[in-house]
């Protein structure tokens, strides 16, 4: 009996201790390291925001809705949050690229890195960039960066070894000799040369020239080869750079796999990844003391940046309680309203920018009624897209009329012209009916003149095609709204159109849209004429393949040679021909807007909410968060 009592007492005291520990005040944990620069907090910041500190100070927690996986490089298909950490530690344009990208998505030579450069137009039509880099660049551990580090990166991530391991292996895919090098046919990458300790050259293959986005093709970043491989050196005997040593999958796979997840890892960016907690999916970045600056020469002023996982349900509570300091890209109406309420209460600010992308309807351009332009246009007239966008985005969205983002510089500079030329397809049953009649949809099911019900069209072989559109839907929120605003719209039936929705998984929607017969022969059979999904744009606006019939990127299967040619011509402009680029863009968008292979539905206005302690924050659809934060500081 005594034993039982003691046992009960022990258990109760354990429960009590757990409770008491849990109830302890939520003060800063005693073992959390003090943050530099917080000894003299600003007692009453009021409207006077202190100026930027002379040294990095403070801490910023970024709320991140995508789980980190712990694989810190994007070559093996990682998500956006990991890409941010990759950029923070020197990846892409985050550290010492020869070519930097501005927040507006424009490319320029990085003068912090490049001492001088030279271009040579070769006789075979190729073009060589000779980069002379500065001799003051170092990794975070102080070891020097030379031309071999830039060339090594290009070789490593173009090699057959990483390709065999499942990486993209497309780092230098537009350079001379890439095909032979990446397939393992030659050991030298002929388009990549080491010229001296601080000079190297990259040669763009003639088949990719002229190209408006020429600079990104010759952008290179340094990579510490000794971190990724063992016993490998990069040399050049005059025929192109190559690796010495046992550079095979068998010899290097383990090193590369380990390096993908290793912490600490070399950094050439503004921050060093210092820790990652798998249990809470939290990554901690600390300032790289040896970073010489971004393309403007700016060094980071925030000492510590933390990536913390958040979810949609409680993310605003996290912001309100100080669990996070910065929340990026809020898109839903309720979330934005909650954020604006916080801003109104004080202590928080926000910034907005238009999404470079949109939710859309994709039409099957070679199947059923949607293969006819009049049907696609009639559907556009029968959906009030302004109303749809307002309902879906909670009022924080807009409608675009072609494949562009409102933040694209070429759209902004041609907006007035496009406004005149583009058809916004205002809601109109009359216009829809008129178009259908012009398109020959004037029969009923018996071949008599149409009076009511579903319209039919007499095809060349004399058969009647009903105006019934099969819609492959993933049953998401957009689908539900489309059902209300389009499928169940009485005017749709009035116009003689019927849409049949089939709900399936998103993976199946993609399979049917892309006609992925490898997965299952049934997907290869054109079945659906309408799909709903979304797409985004990168700063490189290259529409070369999206309208080429039979090409994998043309998921609309619309066969319009003129549209395909215009799409292809845009990026094939000379890099200096800005006006020509803009004119081709306008011509392409105008025809696209008429042909309507897709119908843009909504484009979000993203909101970033942040604690007032963050000063100087701005965002754009193309900017990555860490390069933006390099220009900010925190007041604590």
């Amino acid at each position: 009996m005594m034993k039982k009592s003691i046992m009960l007492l022990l258990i109760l005291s354990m429960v009590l201790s757990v409770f008491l520990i849990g109830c302890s005040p939520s003060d800063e944990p005693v073992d959390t390291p003090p943050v530099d620069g917080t000894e003299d907090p600003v007692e009453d910041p009021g409207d006077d925001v202190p100026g930027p500190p002379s040294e990095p100070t403070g801490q910023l927690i970024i709320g991140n809705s995508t789980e980190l996986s712990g694989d810190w490089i994007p070559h093996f298909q990682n998500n956006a949050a990991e890409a941010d950490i990759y950029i923070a530690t020197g990846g892409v344009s985050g550290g010492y690229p020869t070519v930097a990208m501005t927040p507006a998505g424009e490319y320029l030579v990085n003068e912090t890195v490049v001492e001088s450069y030279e271009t040579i137009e070769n006789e075979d039509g190729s073009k060589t960039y000779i980069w002379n880099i500065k001799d003051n660049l170092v990794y975070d551990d102080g070891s020097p960066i030379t031309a071999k580090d830039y060339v090594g990166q290009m070789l490593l991530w173009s090699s057959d070894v990483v390709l065999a391991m499942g990486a993209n292996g497309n780092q230098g895919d537009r350079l001379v000799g890439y095909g032979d090098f990446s397939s393992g046919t030659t050991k030298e990458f002929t388009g990549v040369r080491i010229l001296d300790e601080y000079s190297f050259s990259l040669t763009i293959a003639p088949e990719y020239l002229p190209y408006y986005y020429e600079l990104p093709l010759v952008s290179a970043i340094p990579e510490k080869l000794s971190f990724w491989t063992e016993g490998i050196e990069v040399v050049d005997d005059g025929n192109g750079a190559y690796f010495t040593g046992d550079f095979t999958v068998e010899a290097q796979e383990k090193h590369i796999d380990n390096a993908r997840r290793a912490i600490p890892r070399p950094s050439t960016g503004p921050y060093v990844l210092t820790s990652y907690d798998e249990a809470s999916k939290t990554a901690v970045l600390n300032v790289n003391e040896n970073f010489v600056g971004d393309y403007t020469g700016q060094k980071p002023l925030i000492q510590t940046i933390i990536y913390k996982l958040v979810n949609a349900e409680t993310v605003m509570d996290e912001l309100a309680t100080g669990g996070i300091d910065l929340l990026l890209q809020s898109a839903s109406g309720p979330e934005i309203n909650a954020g604006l309420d916080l801003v109104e209460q004080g202590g928080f600010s926000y910034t907005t920018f238009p999404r470079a992308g949109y939710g859309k309807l994709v039409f099957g351009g070679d199947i059923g009624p949607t293969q006819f332009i009049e049907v696609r246009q009639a559907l556009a007239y029968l959906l009030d897209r302004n109303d749809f966008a307002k309902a879906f985005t909670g009022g924080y969205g807009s409608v675009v009329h072609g494949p562009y983002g409102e933040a694209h510089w070429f759209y902004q500079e041609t907006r007035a012209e496009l406004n005149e030329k583009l058809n916004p397809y205002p809601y109109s049953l009359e216009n829809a009916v008129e178009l259908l009649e012009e398109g020959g949809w004037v029969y009923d099911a018996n071949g008599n003149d149409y009076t009511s019900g579903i319209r039919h069209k007499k095809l060349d072989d004399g058969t009647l095609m009903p105006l019934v559109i099969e819609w492959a839907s993933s049953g998401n929120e957009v689908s539900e709204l489309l059902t209300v605003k389009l499928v169940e719209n009485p005017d749709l039936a009035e116009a003689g159109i019927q849409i049949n929705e089939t709900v399936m998984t998103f993976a199946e929607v993609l399979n049917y849209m892309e006609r992925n017969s490898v997965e299952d022969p049934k997907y290869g059979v054109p079945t659906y004429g309408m799909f709903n999904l979304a797409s985004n744009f990168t700063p490189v606006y290259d529409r070369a393949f999206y309208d080429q019939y039979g090409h994998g990127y043309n998921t609309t299967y619309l066969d319009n040679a003129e549209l395909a040619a215009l799409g292809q011509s845009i990026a094939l402009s000379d890099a200096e021909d800005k006006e020509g680029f803009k004119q081709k863009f306008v011509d392409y968008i105008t025809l696209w807007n008429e042909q309507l292979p897709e119908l843009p539905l909504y484009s979000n206005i993203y909101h970033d909410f942040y604690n007032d302690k963050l000063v100087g924050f701005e965002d754009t659809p193309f900017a990555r968060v860490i390069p933006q934060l390099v220009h900010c500081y925190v007041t604590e």
Partner: protein
Amino acid sequence: MAKYFAKRVLYMVFVFCVLSVLLFFLFNMIPGDPAAMELAAVKESITPEQYAQRYAQLRDQMGLDDPLIIRYVKWFSNMITGDFGMSHVYKQPVLDVVKVPLRNTVFINVFVVIICLIITIPLGIFCAVKKNSLFDKVVQVFTVIGYSMPKFIIALLCIYLFAVKNNWFPVSGMNSPNFQGTGFALFKDTMHHLFLPLLVIILGSLGGITRYVRAAMIDALSMDYIKTARAKGLKERIVIFSHAWRNALLPVITLIISWFMTIFSGSLIVERMFNLHGMGKFYIDALNRQDFNVAIAIQMFYIVIALFGNLITDLSYGIVDPRVRVNS
């Protein structure tokens, strides 16, 4: 007993094999192309030729072009040696990626199970003994509320009250970001973060078990042998704990053992609300991302747990109730 045990183990192996076939074929019938899904994120950044090459390579690496039966044989023979394949999302062996969420889930559930049983069993017994008293009625009302209120709502209420309004606990996470402490300081920080999730799970679980224990005890207390025991003049405590509770234990033991088995299973809603990297969310994420190697490995693990749970339950009947002992 040994023969019975051996028969049960053989039965478990048979059930495990049959379920492995069913699950493998079911998972492979789910529409979607894992290779295409994996490449979707980079489709815009590589050329169509590179895409086609990578797609073919990925299908080959994933073994998607093999006949289903071949894929099953390969998968099963690897699985029984402990090789569950690679996670297509994490690009790591499945066993490696499951470790952390499983550890988190077990850590959380150990507290939940112990605290729940400590509260519910005495409470259920007390309510049965004091049946229809004011206390019993109050407990019944609250258990019905706790039983029927979704955990999602309880979680939101707790977050609002204890995190947003009073700032006593953090909204989510398992530790303070950038926490540097070790040992007790780390444990304290973890418990500070886990208090709300534990509270939500416990509040959501109390009702059902309390009512179950109460019902079992009421049945036991109504038996003739209880009247006999009381008539013999035994102390009420002995009547309740030695006579009634021992007999009420038989139905309750199934519940208790199944509860111990839930130590390994996560709570999707609570994990999602509090951003805990546990098995519930991990499993659903694996399904959503078509990371089938992970999903099927978790499912097979739960099958093993369930089979062992049944075995332990059956064996424990014999311990609790001599009438159902196999030897006798």
